[in-house]
């Protein structure tokens, strides 16, 4: 009984939903504030994200008549569930809640949920902008999932293990994988940008081209849920990268500081680049990120 309660607490409060939402919301705010300051603007106050979500939850939600209602509403929930299942597998502060010998494979699957949810949202919304956004996201996924998975598999080949805990424990003893596999780390960080939908890879949500892409028709509570997804993404994707390549953290503070470092890196890239066209970003991911990941995969297979 107590175990079940503990699991539920872990899933919904700490390090699950509420904890990652607060941290993600603050990271999201930090991104916006830093970006604003770098662009000579003032930027929002720290509670902006929470206020936005509260406002959206108190508004009417309109489901367009051309949309497929249940898929339209389920898409953000699908995305949240995927991200929450990842967060319980991450060793935030030395120990993770849910341990399994195949957790790396599971996490890679669940991390694809937000992208899939965006495609479902775009297609089910019945809007041409949504359809274009979904097709862009689908093309982008082909580009970024491959190097992302290969860079993670490099570590699995190195350790002959698919357990995230063993990856972290190895790094506690031997130093971060960033030093051992720099190319795979770079490929993984490049893939973070399209995963969080930031420049130069934000074509699926390009506001000046297709308004909001898949999110064009969303309003009220479903849009609020997508805002939550956004905040969760800002915490969980950097956290996953920190766990795999940047040595994790022996305590929560160290872990969060490393995540913050990645957030700053992503923000700087986001600020200094214009947007790639979809075919350009696809080419970039396959021509630069994929070879980088493959080189390190070969190194880990051959030289170990």
């Amino acid at each position, binding site marked *: 009984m107590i175990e079940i309660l503990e699991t539920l607490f872990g899933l919904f409060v700490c390090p699950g939903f509420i904890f990652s939402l607060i941290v993600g919301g603050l990271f999201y705010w930090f991104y916006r504030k830093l970006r604003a300051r*770098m*662009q*000579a*603007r003032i930027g929002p106050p720290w509670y902006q994200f929470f206020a936005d979500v509260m406002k959206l939850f108190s508004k009417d939600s309109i489901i367009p008549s051309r949309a497929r209602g249940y898929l339209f509403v389920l898409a953000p929930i699908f995305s949240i569930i995927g991200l929450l299942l990842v967060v319980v597998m991450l060793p935030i502060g030395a120990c993770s809640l849910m341990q399994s010998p195949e957790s790396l494979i599971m996490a890679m699957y669940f991390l694809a949920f937000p992208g899939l949810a965006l495609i479902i949202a775009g297609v089910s919304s019945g809007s*041409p*902008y949504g*359809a*274009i956004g979904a*097709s*862009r996201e689908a093309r982008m996924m082909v580009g970024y999932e491959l190097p992302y998975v290969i860079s993670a598999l490099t570590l699995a080949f190195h350790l002959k293990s698919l357990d995230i805990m063993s990856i972290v424990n190895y790094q506690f003893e031997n130093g971060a994988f960033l030093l051992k596999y720099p190319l795979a780390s770079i490929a993984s960080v490049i893939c973070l940008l399209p995963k969080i939908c930031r*420049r*130069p890879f*934000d*074509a699926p949500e*390009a*506001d*000046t*081209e*297709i*308004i909001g892409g898949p999110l064009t028709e969303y309003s009220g509570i479903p849009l609020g849920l997508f805002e939550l997804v956004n905040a969760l993404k800002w915490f969980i994707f950097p956290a996953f990268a920190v766990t795999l390549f940047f040595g994790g953290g022996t305590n929560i503070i160290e872990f969060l500081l490393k995540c913050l470092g990645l957030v700053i890196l992503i923000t700087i890239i986001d*600020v*200094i*680049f*214009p*947007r*790639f*066209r*979809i*075919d*350009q970003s696809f080419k970039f991911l396959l021509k630069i990120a994929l070879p980088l990941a493959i080189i390190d995969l070969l190194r880990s297979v051959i030289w170990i």
Partner: protein
Amino acid sequence: MSEVIPIGPFHPALKEAAHFELEVEGEKVVGGDFKFGYMHRGIEDLATKKSYHSNIFLAERVCGICNTVHSTCYTQTVEALMNLDPPQRAKYIRTIVFETERLASHLLWFGVGMHELGYDTAYMYLWREREHVMEIMERLCGKRVNLGINTLGGVRRDISPEIIDFINGKLDIVDKVIEKTGKIINEDRILKSRVKNIGILPKDEAKKLCVVGPTARGSGIDIDVRRDEPYAAYSKMDFQVPLEESGDILSRVLVRFKELIESTKIIRQSIKDLPRGPISLEELPFPNKGEAFGRVEGHRGELVYYIKSNGTNRPERVKIRTPSVVNNSSLLYMMLGEKLADVPIIIASIDPCFSCTDRVTIVENKSNSRKTVLLSQLKRRRNN
């Protein structure tokens, strides 16, 4: 299989209301239809009901960003009707304000273009630096947007030596801004890959579509009213007309960029040899019976005013042809075969100004069908 993507009337890429219906196959544009006319304001009709003097204010409100262009063109056309020659000092001041506004307009355009490409940082920086040009306009005219400098037979405000010092100081800052802009355009490879060889308008096609201004000069057509038929004080200025041959978006960007440099040159020259004397004529005659035709080189291209007078204090007919009227028709040619992602920057590349352009829309109330109306059909309609 193609589907129709609507862009507009309200869309983040458009700063004003216009409707584009694009047929796309995947991401490729294969066809399209444009509808303008959402902001038709009946200005030409209104102009016939006001006196020549109040029409200056009306002309200024045709367009926000190129208001001095409109008021200069209007006053020059009316002055031609009145057989007036404004004092030299007034002509020089008109030139200064005209070119300052060109700086403001082009810098604004660069910001918008960067925003369309998703380069928000450059957009924010350029608009912040544009503030210096706005300050020049504020000191010159007392206002920042609708400048209200022109009047019949001259200008309304004089330039004092302090203002000249102020402008000189600000122009040095603007030079640095232009240098930075050039650096962004020339050195950013992603930016270049987004605008190079996109939206090509070849020279013969540009001639066929009668495009004007930077759009024409980007396609290698060497036209510029300031040089070809000088007005205000342009005949005494030494400046180049930038020309690019390739006709893609990059060449239009480069033309505008070089025009920024030329504008600062013109402003410097005209404040250096600003003649002494009065700034406006004391007495104005009634306009002669007849018609007059005036043109100036606006920031978007050649602007034409035609005014017919019947000897009273009100014009009988005022016809305005804004540059965007002709430039808009070239959009479809540029878009065909390009990616949907390039459409916003193609639209932005001609720097369209829809509300000045909007004329008359034919609304068929009975049947809800839409069709293309050819010129011959329109003629038949008129004859019936």
